[in-house]
């Protein structure tokens, strides 16, 4: 089947999608957007977090066909032009990136959090990011990054 959707502001048609494929597979293998990661493909790690119709989802848990006619924003679509989005820049600066495999998912989840709650408390950060596993950092610098990004978007 073919799936038509808007990805990062561009109309796209993914051709020859097999019915069993996930949105994650479609983004990666049909549309060449490898930024959303495939760490568990079971909805447990958040590495594949994207916006589907404005809602944060695990792309591995969504069937490709469900994206028909919808708007999708992936980690590749957050920054304008060649720069970084404030959340991305904060992750770099805070040292929240080691291997970086969790990073795209955490960047999208943090973006979503700060849209909903511009100045989150420590507990709110932890709750919002509880679905994103990072095996490298122990999370301290991820929390620093969220606070840094929140502080910068306030000022």
């Amino acid at each position, binding site marked *: 089947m073919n799936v038509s959707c808007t990805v990062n502001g561009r109309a796209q048609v993914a051709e020859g999608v*097999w019915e*069993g*494929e996930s949105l994650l597979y479609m983004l*990666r*293998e049909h549309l*060449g*957007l*490898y*930024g*959303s*990661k*495939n*760490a*568990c*493909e*079971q909805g*447990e*790690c958040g*590495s594949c977090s994207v916006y589907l119709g404005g809602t944060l989802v695990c792309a591995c848990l969504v069937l490709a066909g469900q994206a028909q006619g919808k708007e999708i924003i*992936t*980690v*590749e679509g957050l*920054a304008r032009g060649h720069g*970084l989005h404030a959340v*991305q*820049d904060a*992750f*770099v*600066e805070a*040292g929240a*990136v*080691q*291997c*970086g*495999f*969790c*990073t*795209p998912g955490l*960047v999208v989840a943090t973006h979503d959090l700060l849209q909903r709650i511009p100045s989150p408390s420590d*507990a709110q*950060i*932890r*709750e919002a*990011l*509880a*679905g*994103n*596993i*990072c*095996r*490298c*950092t*122990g*999370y*301290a*610098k*991820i*929390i620093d990054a969220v606070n840094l990004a929140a502080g910068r978007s306030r000022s």
Partner: protein
Amino acid sequence: MKPRLAEETTSGGRVGDRVRRPDAVQKVRGDFPYSSDLQVDGMLWGATVRSPHPYARIESIDTKAAKAAPGVKAVLTFEDVAGENAYGLEIADQPVLASDVVRYWGEAVALVAAEHPEQARRAADKVKVEYAVLKPVTDPEQALLPKAPKLHPGGNVTRHIKIRHGDQNATAEVVVTGDYEIGMQDQAPLGPESGLAIPDGEGGVDLYIATQWLHIDQKQLAHVLGLEPHEVRLTMAGIGGAFGAREDLSMQAHACMLALKTGRPVKISYSRPESFVGHVHRHPGKLHYEHGATKDGKLVYVKARIVLDGGAYASSSTAVIANASCFAVGPYQCPNATIDGIVAYTNNPPCGAMRGFGSVQNCYAHEAQMDKLAAALTMDPVALRRHNSLETGSALITGQVIDGPVPVAELLRLVHERPLPAPAAKNADLTAMPGGVSNTTHGESVKRGIGYAAGFKNIGYSEGFNDFSTARVRLSVVDGKPRVEVHTAGAEVGQGLVTIQAQIAGTELGVRDVMVLTADTEVGSAGSSSASRQTYITGGAVKAACEAVRERVVALAQSELKSGEGLRLEDENIVGADGNVLVALATLLGEEVIDELRVFRPRKTSPLDPDTGQANAHMQFAFAAHRAVVDVDTELGLVKVVELATAQDVGKAINPQAVEGQLEGGAAQGLGLAVMEEIQVQDGVIKNPSFTDYLLPTILDMPPVRMDILELGDPNSPYGLKGVGEPPTISSGPAILAAIRAATGRPVTRVPVRPHDLVL
């Protein structure tokens, strides 16, 4: 044909600076190509047929139906292994594809390549393998009995380390004994095992791969593929974490075999369940300890029997058991020791390297013993540890005298004296409670406990292993400015090696524009990104190559300027003895390219004496201490780790931000083994091969980590640095266990701690 790889970015920064990672920009944009993201036109997907039995004889393999399945281009079995069908890091005992016997659940038996990954998986299901099921040996103690079936021709003892130090008949006034058990932990790097093999059309193959050590992969691949090493060229792809899981071959040989057979590029990328059987794990173990001490709290002797379950194949078991044995007593002075460390073959999943490498298992035991001893002596547990701490000039139980700073007592003092977190607040946020948002308590039956632990381990390879790394450094002028290119084969697994190489080159050559080239087998071996060794060894190689480049620059300046002594390279200029700028580096170089290759070797080590385990077997040691504060719901057996405090001597923090990241991330993996992470193996079968059932610490589980980072400077190492990565994973978990014991008053001798261990 080449897949797109990570950009070779330039960065600046000097040794000791907090440097932004050059690769982080691509990573936050989602633009960093990991090994699972590789693709080229015309690529096939590989899938692996795996054994559903932990131990069985293969009677027959029928590939007809699989070969006829849609999209399938090749189905391979052991008959297609062109070289010797055996590989392994220390002992070549593992087949690339099983031929006559399978020895563990999930062992690879056959391979499929197809146009679509789902076609490959479905065809894999169509490979018919008939097995004669055998009764698996799943307990290492049983495996060691004379009547046990021999799983390998040499028997089931993979290695037995004997340490006989001092008086073997020593007696003591106070004696405590204990038995401890460690569950099987998974490294669980987020990036799956994956890579892309591209045939070169002349019988050779290029492999793009996420691995901890390119050259050991190359050596093993050439052997099993029946090729010369130069016919198997490896290039590093982006690595999504490693922690030991990428030391052994996983899909490397399989992808190469399929590519060579089909003549097309082949990618293999494991699913998470497959990853659980696709790499080795941390050894589970049983440890029996006896500590003897004087009435005033000096250790007299330690006797220990450490039995680790190596699983079906050797992997790095022989080195893991050496560590578990050599550091069995912990960072304490002990004049007499009798240690038997045994690692056995079983039909459980193979075990090998994981961060901490043998020193994690024994730390749970020796630290529990120190607390027991303190209780028997009615001494403060920290005071007892400090009273027995190793110092500069102390002899280990292997007879090796440690030189350089050995600040064990100081590390313990630092974590001990750090202010404690506030007591649990009434009406605290649920996420701060044991049980969290499950809303199981509002503070009733919650008891707080505080525990301490110290640990240590070796940095770099031990026992006479030929440890070295190679670096090539090239200085030229690009766009009118000096540019340094650093080329090594060192694996950037996330720890920050790419930053460190640039910092070292920037420091040694004073050049701002440093580019670290993609790691590959075109340059000599860097050894593995393991044993916390890369900053030391590959860092040392980069430093040596830069020094050679610098000497040539100065010689060039001397001849060009017809000037004598005292010329220096400083801040992209040649400076005279009086400090005046004589010529800009770019001007001096012009078209000239200075290119130097150096091999760096740390000081030599020696093999352990086979009867006594005595030797100068280790090159450097790193120490850390932790304090844990926990809240335990004593009715439900739920644990909340409230805070971790740590102190560690890193010698010199090359990049302080990266050092902190290692201390925090390493502590998280220690916490995982202490309270939640376990691969549950029943009769040889993994029951929880997914992130749904294998629990990893989330942001809700991880407390703040308070840190004291000491930079005491090792006189033997480049910049005085020490390996950093592993000590945080060693004593963090044992401190949590001590805190849980303090909170509950229960002995708690097994990790991970389960609720029923605390209430039943």
